[in-house]
């Protein structure tokens, strides 16, 4: 679909959701680890938003609402295709991440290690970290997106950051090759 056609068709589409498409995609990709499936999930969510676009006034935070849909659909797909998602993670690491090759030349291994650390986190911790660290969402928005309480969000973030700090410390002390 060309950019022009997309823009024409999007006149009735809620602008806040249009602007959040890359956020939704990154979140789906974080859960699924597959480019194709992440794109499919975002497409499904967009169709749902289109069907409900006249009811959007009742939704306080449309972005968080869409994030929740992405989470639910991604987890459903993940359950159905667990093995395929694991293989896709490896291919995604090579293709989609590390957008600036020049800056990665010296720290490529460290970045890969951090990716592994993040992927090894429990599901809730991984999602909380992604929404907070990558997308810059507030605690309130994260509770709405993940359907968790404020305490649960803070606990998950605390545990994830503590684990990350320990692992980063180990990498610095022991060295990358042995990490």
């Amino acid at each position, binding site marked *: 679909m060309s950019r022009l056609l997309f823009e024409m068709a999007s006149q009735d589409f809620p602008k806040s959701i249009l602007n959040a498409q890359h956020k939704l995609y990154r979140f789906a990709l974080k859960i699924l680890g597959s480019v194709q499936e992440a794109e499919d999930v975002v497409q499904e969510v967009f169709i749902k938003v289109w069907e409900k*676009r006249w009811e959007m006034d009742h939704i306080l935070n449309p972005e968080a609402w869409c994030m929740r849909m992405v989470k639910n659909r991604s987890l459903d797909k993940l359950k159905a295709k667990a093995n395929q998602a694991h293989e896709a993670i490896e291919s995604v690491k090579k293709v989609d991440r590390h957008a600036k090759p020049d800056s990665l030349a010296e*720290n490529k291994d*460290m970045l890969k290690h951090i990716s592994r650390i993040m992927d090894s986190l429990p599901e809730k911790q991984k999602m909380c970290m992604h929404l907070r660290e990558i997308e810059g969402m507030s605690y309130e928005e994260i509770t709405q997106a993940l359907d968790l309480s404020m305490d649960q969000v*803070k606990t998950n973030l605390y545990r994830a950051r503590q684990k990350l700090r320990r692992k980063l410390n180990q990498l*610095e002390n022991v060295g990358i090759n042995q990490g």
Partner: protein
Amino acid sequence: MKEIIEKYWKGESSLEEEKLLEKWLLDAPDTKENRELKIWLKWKESERAIQMQRLPEIPQAQKPEKAKVRRLAPTKILLSVAALICLLWLIRTSLVKPQLQKETPSWAYEDSFEDPEEAYKVTEEALLLLSTKMNTSKKHKKKLRKIHILSDLIESYTKD
């Protein structure tokens, strides 16, 4: 900044503090702890750079056009009725009421007396005068009736 870093690792920092920390890390000195945070920030930036390549397709609108018409129609009717009522009320106040006011002379709305006892006395006199005149007119009416009967008789005789 040490305080913010500690708060960050404990999960107690605010969004503003985290943004401040990221900004500070760009030019931070090269210590062990700072190196860990710097590489973490680098990783986050690479993740944020990921964008969707295939744009999602937006379905074409058909159903919502009907829904829009249904929503507006009752509102339009209500507005038309309200406008009609306002117009009728305006007509009444601007045309009919002044007409009624013209028939009644202005002095009728003014108070003639300030003293109520004086007003009562004058009213009593006026009513007495009115009743006297009414009685007088009754008498005249009887006389007029007789004259009327006589004129009818005369007319009937002259025709014959």
